[in-house]
């Protein structure tokens, strides 16, 4: 027998703690307690990340040999993820209606969280895959929580894409692992270069991770799921969960691959296209969803271009976007004009940072990201500020128009403070991490040329926003490609027949084929046919051989 484990148990405890909280609501009496515990679930992970994610551990007997360890990028994102989950968890604990549904929500919230933390801590592909499956599939329960028609529809699209992504990912990982003859992430990553099916494997990985990361055209679940999910759910989906796809690409895509160009192109398409498409939306959460697709597009460009600042950029975006989604929730719960103005102000400052106002965290993230990506992409990054300003400015108008719900919660001020803290960290944390993250001088963000480069696209964006306000912008349902491109006919094919039987069979040729299967089966069951067919086949064989010999 092997030793049960070797190494430090800290990374394991980080994952175990949310799972333990997750099983608490199994006992009906404890459901409310479990809901109150939500903000505590990610705290060990936060402490672990702040300590620099020290230590690694190996469990030789668990699954196919679990190894946990975090690299520098992973540690950065682990801390961000834990923070966003903690604040969103508190919001959820304060606002969620109590009852059986809340128990289900709590359990799967914790499972999703454990998966989300797990993708940063896994050092072997099986653990990574398990964690990825947990974050991907369990998040379905966050999407459909409200059980409305829109939520269930979004859930169908979500689960279809998630299952597709899981399958693509597993196949890609198998191709790498078969060549590597090992399960360590680093070995598998290196093996893609030599594997006979390496390019296919990398392509499948990109598809699998791209679905999660909102890569165009696999992003369609995002604008459907975000407005449908409860606010806490959208905050973690957009702030933290989409980053699971990103870390997957960072960990597993080999250095030299032709796919990087594809990533850059699709990323640019998403960065600009999704931001502009966001203007066709009225629901502030849908606008934010398109902004997420756009920001994730930028991140994909950075991954494709091999930028060093990917995790740094993602850290800022995760916190800022998490805060923005929670602002939507606070706006719905605001009761006085003062509270509404406070929320608008908070959202405004986060927006300015994401758009890259000089000296904010977002501006620093952009500066770091531009290092080493070449002039063309650097210009594209600068220009992306125009569309980001446009879409997030549009979001602020939509937010201001949002009607308040009559519901009141006692902890409004406390929650607001927590969300403000999250936004403040988004603005400030990049300053603290600047020396370690980037090879740029300390004073670089203060240089006038740098500041000007950040400022003019924003001004341009504001002008565009003013013009856009005068235009009669169309009001489209969320889900762009799914709603428009292949027309309604393809939709049932894209969706698994979850829920309603027979959805898949709406197309006539499929129906005919299935009917033929059924008839063939019935014919086989007719036993004289079956028996004589068998013996006939055997006799034919014998005769064949007889003549051959």
């Amino acid at each position: 027998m092997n030793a049960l484990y070797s190494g430090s148990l800290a990374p394991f405890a980080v994952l175990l703690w949310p799972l333990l909280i997750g099983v608490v609501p199994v006992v009906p009496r404890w459901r409310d307690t479990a809901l109150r515990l939500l903000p505590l679930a990610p705290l060990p992970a936060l402490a672990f990340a702040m300590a620099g994610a020290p230590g690694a551990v190996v469990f030789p007997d668990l699954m196919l040999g679990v190894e946990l360890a975090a690299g520098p990028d992973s540690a950065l994102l682990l801390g961000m993820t834990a923070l966003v989950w903690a604040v969103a968890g508190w919001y959820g604990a304060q606002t969620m209606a109590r009852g059986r549904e809340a128990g289900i929500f709590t359990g799967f919230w914790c499972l999703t969280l454990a998966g989300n933390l797990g993708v940063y801590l896994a050092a072997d592909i099986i653990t990574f895959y398990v964690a990825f499956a947990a974050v991907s599939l369990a998040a379905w329960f966050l999407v459909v929580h409200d059980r409305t028609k829109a939520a269930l529809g979004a859930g169908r699209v979500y689960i279809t894409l998630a299952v597709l992504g899981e399958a693509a990912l597993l196949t890609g990982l198998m191709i790498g692992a078969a060549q590597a003859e090992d399960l360590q992430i680093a070995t598998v990553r290196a093996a893609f270069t030599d594997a006979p099916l390496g390019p296919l494997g990398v392509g499948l990985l990109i598809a699998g991770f791209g679905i999660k990361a909102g890569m165009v055209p696999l992003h369609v679940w995002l604008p459907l799921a975000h407005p449908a999910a409860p606010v806490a759910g959208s905050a973690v989906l957009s702030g933290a969960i989409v980053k699971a796809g990103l870390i997957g690409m960072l960990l597993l895509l080999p250095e030299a691959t032709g796919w990087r160009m594809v990533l850059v192109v699709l990323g640019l398409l998403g960065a600009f296209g999704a931001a502009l498409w966001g203007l066709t939306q009225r629901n502030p959460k849908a606008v934010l969803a398109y902004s997420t697709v756009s920001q994730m597009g930028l991140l994909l460009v950075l991954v494709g271009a091999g930028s060093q600042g990917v995790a740094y950029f993602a850290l800022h975006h995760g916190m800022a976007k998490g805060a923005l989604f929670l602002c939507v929730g606070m706006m719905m719960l605001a009761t006085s004009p003062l509270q509404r103005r406070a929320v608008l102000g908070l959202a405004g400052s986060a927006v300015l940072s994401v758009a890259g106002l000089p000296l904010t965290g977002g501006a620093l993230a952009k500066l770091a990201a531009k290092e080493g990506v070449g002039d063309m992409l650097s210009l594209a990054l600068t220009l992306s500020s125009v569309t980001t300003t446009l879409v997030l400015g549009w979001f602020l108008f939509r937010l201001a128009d949002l009607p308040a719900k009559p519901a009141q919660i006692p902890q409004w001020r406390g929650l607001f403070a927590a969300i403000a803290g999250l936004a403040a960290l988004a603005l400030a944390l990049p300053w603290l991490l600047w020396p370690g993250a980037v090879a740029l001088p300390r004073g670089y963000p203060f240089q006038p040329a740098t500041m000007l480069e950040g400022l003019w696209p924003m001004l341009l964006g504001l002008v565009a926003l003013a013009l856009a306000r005068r235009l009669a912008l169309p009001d489209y349902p969320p889900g762009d490609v799914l709603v428009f491109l292949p027309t309604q006919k393809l939709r049932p094919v894209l969706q698994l027949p979850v829920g309603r039987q027979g959805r898949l069979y709406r197309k006539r040729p499929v129906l005919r084929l299935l009917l033929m299967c059924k008839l063939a089966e019935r014919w086989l069951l007719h036993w004289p046919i079956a028996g004589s067919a068998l013996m006939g086949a055997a006799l034919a064989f014998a005769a064949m051989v007889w003549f051959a010999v």
Partner: protein
Amino acid sequence: MTTALPVLLLMTSLLPAGVTFFLAQDSHALRNALQLGGAVLKLALIIWMLFAVADGAAYEAEFPLAPGLVVLLRVDALALLFISLSATLWFLTTIYAIAYFGTKAELSRFFGFFSLCVAATTGLALSGSLISFFIFFELLTLSTWPLVAHKQDKPSLRAARVYFAYALPGSAALLWAIIWLESATGPVLFTEPPDLSGLDPAALRAIFALFIIGVGVKAGLVPLHGWLPAAMAAPAPVSALLHAVAVVKAGAFGVVRVVYDVFGAENMTALGVGVPLAIVASFTIIWGSVRALQQDEIKKRLAFSTVSQVSYIVLGAALASPLAMIGGLVHLIHQGLMKITLFFCAGIFDERAGVKRIDGLNGMGAQMPWTSACFSIGALGMIGLPPLAGFVSKFYLGLGALEAGAPWVLAVLLASTFLNAAYFLPILYRLWFLPLASGAKGDDRAPGLVVPAVVTAAATVGVGMLAASPISPLGWATLIVTQGYGP
């Protein structure tokens, strides 16, 4: 001791069978004690032997029937893999069956044949020669018929008739293959690969095909699977045993024996019959899943799912690379655990809520939480959700396919995953998310039925979670392949 052990192992099922036939219908306590006693004794024996065989011990018992006809019982690692599965699940199914039937009619007949069926499976697993394999294979066919026909109503009798119509030509094909092969090579023992040089390739291919037809009927290879969905008319414990341990598994086990111990992986590749077999298995995987999608009855959907899943084992054997073989062998265990869970649950839904069809399951999650949870675990395992049992098999099969240079198998595995998701997820959705139909009610306050399901569901999670440990099914399958068939 070394010769007595295999015989003793066989007797733990055979003796209760013999005695049970003569018990009065209402001597429930004695009958149940006999059944459970035999099962417990067998389990103890197996656990003891597991340790011994892991250290390299082998047990053998030989009975000459006639010159050239030797019944050989032999305990090797592969045999133990199959027996430990059948013994564990037999024990659980016995508990389940006792609770399921209560004091219904004709129980002595039922349990007699039930034990006989398990004895045949044990003998099949222990067989060390082709001829003993055939004898137990036939005993299995015959002892299963009364189980399928147990209810004695019209559908049961029809199902039993269909079963025979398929099984007998299969047996004929198997016997033909054995005679043809042994007439050229002399008696075939699994320990010594037969010398095939006396036969020309065409004849060998024909013999291989006959073998596969013979065992393939039981393994449910398309188009020889027709009897399996029909046999759903049998009571739930029978279906559970049939699908997880006895008949279907005997077929799959037979394929493994034929491929590795009669022909050998190299010969199979040289003859060029591995790829056709892999194609047949792949077609079966897809066909079974597509047909499962079209079923409205729970047990029928599960039956077609069995057709599909058992061919994973055949596929692993046909690919003939070490990792694929590990994947196939471990699926022998994993599929058994998952499928018996599903059938236990299907039986509980039927008994405690009167639900036979999938649309009757709406909202049952809250009414029957234990059963529904076990069903969900079994179903998710079938889909291949990590870290459950099915995922481990699938991962090894995928790696093995790449190792064998057959990447197209990955597409088959993918398609199977989607189809499994498509026919299992709607059931889970109904269980947990849709409202209860008015007037429907059910409960799972029947420990004799629920506990076995909980145990197998827990095992489904356990064998996946602890796959890397040396005592897991995966560890054992790896041992078999590295000891017996590895380079």
